[in-house]
């Protein structure tokens, strides 16, 4: 293999490129990114960057020297526009064509938007700087969507002295992901601080004055942030023959086709640890899957390893640090195994079938959380692991993904 193309120059693409070099690949390595910037880190966009605690330079993932050391054919500021697997070429938006022997797709996701006047979204550094510059004290911010991104942005804006309204279609924010009981704890964090959280409301349009709800009400705002999830960047793969369905569909090796792998937010792969297809939009998964895809691309077919990670994410909201391991969506049961929900300091374990499949902690020491990661990684039996430790009543959940 003498020509490898990595499409996508964010966390997953960078991890893939670095791993290829680390594993000894010394052929041509093309890294394509649609943004003009060198790879940068996205989680701080809704945290330190939005709060103006960090300047954009701090988000740079690698120094110019480190990047130069990778000896890349670096194509920044140009999107990939097409893929021809039969010819083994990637077409770029500037009209050029890049041939490959091996390909890694890491094109990420883009924000979902609402009809109307637009409003802010929060995905790129430009998005974050634009919103940051508007978050001055007393400004009225409406955040549409109380998922992790919307909640983090609301928490930052509240701290900056904005008047924040958070609009959420579900009855309890994040209940589909973390369960109703934990979702209610996160809900209280907003309400305790005077953030106007309204659940069960559907926003149909962003207008010049704010947002329009399904019942016709206008919620006025100076700024609107739309945080209603994202869409995998797969449009450019239309006609390529790759299977696309809410992401690039991959097998357990992260392979989408022979010598074609996908990694990061855009990849929907079969995670054998859980026996489920999943697409994970978390920072750590981007790096881990980028590395796994690179190794499998270089490996002999029988030496490839299934990508079977325990997903991890964290979220910072109002000084609360939320950390979660595993796959929480579609759980059958939640049990608080340490601390108390009402104290805002707890560890909740999640069951799917007979196994421990997830753990979410707020304000718990790291070693406590790591034990649960281990339980998930080994597919520990729920009854043996949780029943003996459960301090709170086990909460049956009728929740599915």
């Amino acid at each position: 293999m003498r020509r490898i193309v990595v499409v996508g120059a964010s966390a997953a693409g960078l991890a893939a490129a670095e791993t290829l070099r680390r594993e000894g690949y010394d052929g041509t390595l093309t890294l394509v990114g649609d943004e003009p910037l060198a790879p940068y880190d996205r989680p701080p966009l809704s945290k330190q960057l939005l709060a103006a605690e960090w300047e954009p330079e701090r988000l740079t993932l690698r120094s110019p020297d480190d990047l130069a050391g990778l000896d890349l054919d670096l194509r920044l500021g140009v999107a990939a526009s097409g893929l021809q697997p039969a010819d083994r070429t990637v077409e770029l938006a500037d009209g050029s064509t890049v041939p490959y022997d091996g390909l890694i797709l890491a094109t990420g996701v883009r924000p979902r938007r609402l009809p109307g006047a637009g409003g802010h979204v929060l995905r790129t550094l430009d998005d974050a700087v634009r919103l940051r510059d508007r978050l001055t004290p007393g400004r009225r911010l409406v955040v549409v969507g109380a998922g992790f991104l919307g909640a983090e942005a609301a928490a930052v804006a509240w701290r900056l002295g904005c008047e924040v309204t958070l609009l959420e279609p579900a009855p309890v924010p994040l209940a589909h992901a973390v369960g109703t009981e934990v979702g209610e704890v996160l809900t209280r964090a907003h309400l305790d601080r005077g953030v106007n959280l309204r659940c069960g409301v559907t926003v149909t349009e962003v207008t010049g004055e704010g947002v329009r709800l399904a019942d016709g009400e206008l919620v006025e705002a100076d700024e609107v942030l739309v945080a209603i999830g994202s869409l995998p960047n797969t449009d450019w793969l239309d006609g390529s023959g790759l299977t696309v369905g809410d992401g690039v569909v991959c097998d357990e090796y992260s392979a989408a086709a022979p010598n074609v792998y996908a990694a990061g937010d855009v990849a929907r792969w079969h995670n054998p640890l859980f026996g489920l297809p999943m697409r994970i939009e978390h920072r750590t998964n981007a790096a881990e899957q980028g590395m796994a895809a690179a190794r499998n691309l270089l490996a002999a077919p029988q030496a490839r390893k299934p990508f079977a990670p325990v997903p991890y994410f964290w979220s910072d909201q109002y000084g609360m640090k939320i950390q979660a391991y595993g796959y929480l969506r579609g759980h059958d049961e939640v049990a608080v195994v340490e601390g108390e929900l009402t104290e805002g300091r707890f560890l909740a374990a999640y069951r799917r079938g007979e196994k421990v499949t997830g753990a979410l902690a707020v304000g718990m020491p790291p070693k406590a959380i790591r034990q649960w990661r281990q339980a998930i990684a080994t597919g520990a039996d729920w009854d043996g692991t949780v029943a003996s430790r459960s301090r709170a009543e086990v909460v049956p959940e009728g929740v599915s993904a």
Partner: protein
Amino acid sequence: MKVELEADKCVASGQCVLAAMDVFDQDDDGIAILLDERPAAEHLDDVKEAIAVCPAAAIRLVDQ
């Protein structure tokens, strides 16, 4: 090779400990601690893994 850790960037994920437990630990708040800033050669691959998986890009390896 010397390991550098920017503790104020650390997000307490503990990924470095999972990757290289002879070189990193976490304090009670989860913030990474460097146990060995000049790890032996046999740990360098683990350190590189930790650098790659650190979600905060808070770890570097420098020639010193």
